[in-house]
């Protein structure tokens, strides 16, 4: 097998364990989206055009609360801002590739393809840009088709579930389950705490603006606290 073929397989195999999360997650999105009143076509168009699970859930949640479009967008785009870091991190590795390659990679730049590629580059830094791209698309092949298919199946299931099945709480549970593993350090815990307290205190503000304020303050507090702790420990920055 060619080195590129091997790299593709390495990416595919490395990303396979992630399907355990991606499949059910997409299934859940399909169910919740159709329960929230989207039809199957709208649900699939949503998943295919945005292709970013957490922000899709965030958009569903805020739209269900009848927030204005601007608030929905601010919230769900904020959830995706972490991908700027992914884009920054990958850029130096793929500079020699044609634009159409990088444009296609950008569409498929998700948590799983990013994590797989970075880990493989770390393990074999001598790979060429073509091989690195093969690793990336190996991971994409492992998760992307599954994401779309599971979403479709979820949408079809959702259409058959009666609306009064306490599925209103699927979104909050999903978000909390996504946040919990992120609480790795004191600043992360404090940021989440500030976010919760302020969101509750400001819940009376119109159009979900309280939520935006809570998120902004929580981000600043978390980042500020982390910086302060690093300074105190004398970590150069």
């Amino acid at each position, binding site marked *: 097998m060619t080195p590129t073929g091997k790299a593709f397989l390495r990416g595919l195999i490395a990303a396979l364990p992630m399907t355990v999360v991606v499949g059910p997650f997409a299934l859940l999105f399909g169910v919740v989206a159709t329960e929230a009143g989207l039809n199957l076509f709208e649900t699939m*168009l949503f998943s295919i055009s945005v292709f970013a699970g957490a922000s899709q859930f965030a958009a569903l949640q805020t739209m269900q609360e009848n927030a204005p479009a601007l608030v929905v967008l601010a919230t769900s785009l*904020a959830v995706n801002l972490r991908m*700027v870091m992914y884009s920054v991190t990958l850029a130096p590795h793929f500079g020699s590739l044609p634009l159409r390659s*990088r*444009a296609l990679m950008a569409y498929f730049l998700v948590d799983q393809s990013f994590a797989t590629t970075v880990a493989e580059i770390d393990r074999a830094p001598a790979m060429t840009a073509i091989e690195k791209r093969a690793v990336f698309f190996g991971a994409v092949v492992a998760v992307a088709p599954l994401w779309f298919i599971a979403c479709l199946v979820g949408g079809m299931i959702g259409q058959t579930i009666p609306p009064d099945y306490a599925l209103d*709480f699927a979104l909050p549970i999903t978000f909390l389950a996504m946040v919990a593993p992120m609480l790795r350090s004191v600043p992360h815990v404090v940021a989440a705490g500030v976010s919760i307290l302020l969101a509750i205190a400001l819940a009376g503000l119109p159009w979900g603006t309280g939520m935006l304020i809570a*998120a902004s303050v*929580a981000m600043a507090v978390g980042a500020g606290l982390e910086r302060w702790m690093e300074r105190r420990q004398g970590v150069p*920055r």
Partner: protein
Amino acid sequence: MIDKATFWTVLPVLAIGTYAIRFSFLGTLGTRPLPGWLTRCLRFTAVAVLPALVAPGVLWPPATGGETDPARLAAALVTLAVGVMTRSTMAAILAGGVTLYALLAVMG
């Protein structure tokens, strides 16, 4: 129920915006490093946004007309606790879901 006018306004902008975020550096090959304070803030976006998104609804669920519901509150706490302990999103979702339906069934 989702307002379809909002949905069709949000969809194209969210799709293009998300793509622009992903394309930003990979596509333009911007080589200038981001300022340190910015990357630091970016690392906190998810943990700052997601809890704010759910906290009021956990305390005052729209499904019960805004009245605090012990079953939903307990399910939220179990989800968080299991997620922190196992570091597994799927385990946390399962634990939260089982708690919710078990309590709803018991309390009728």
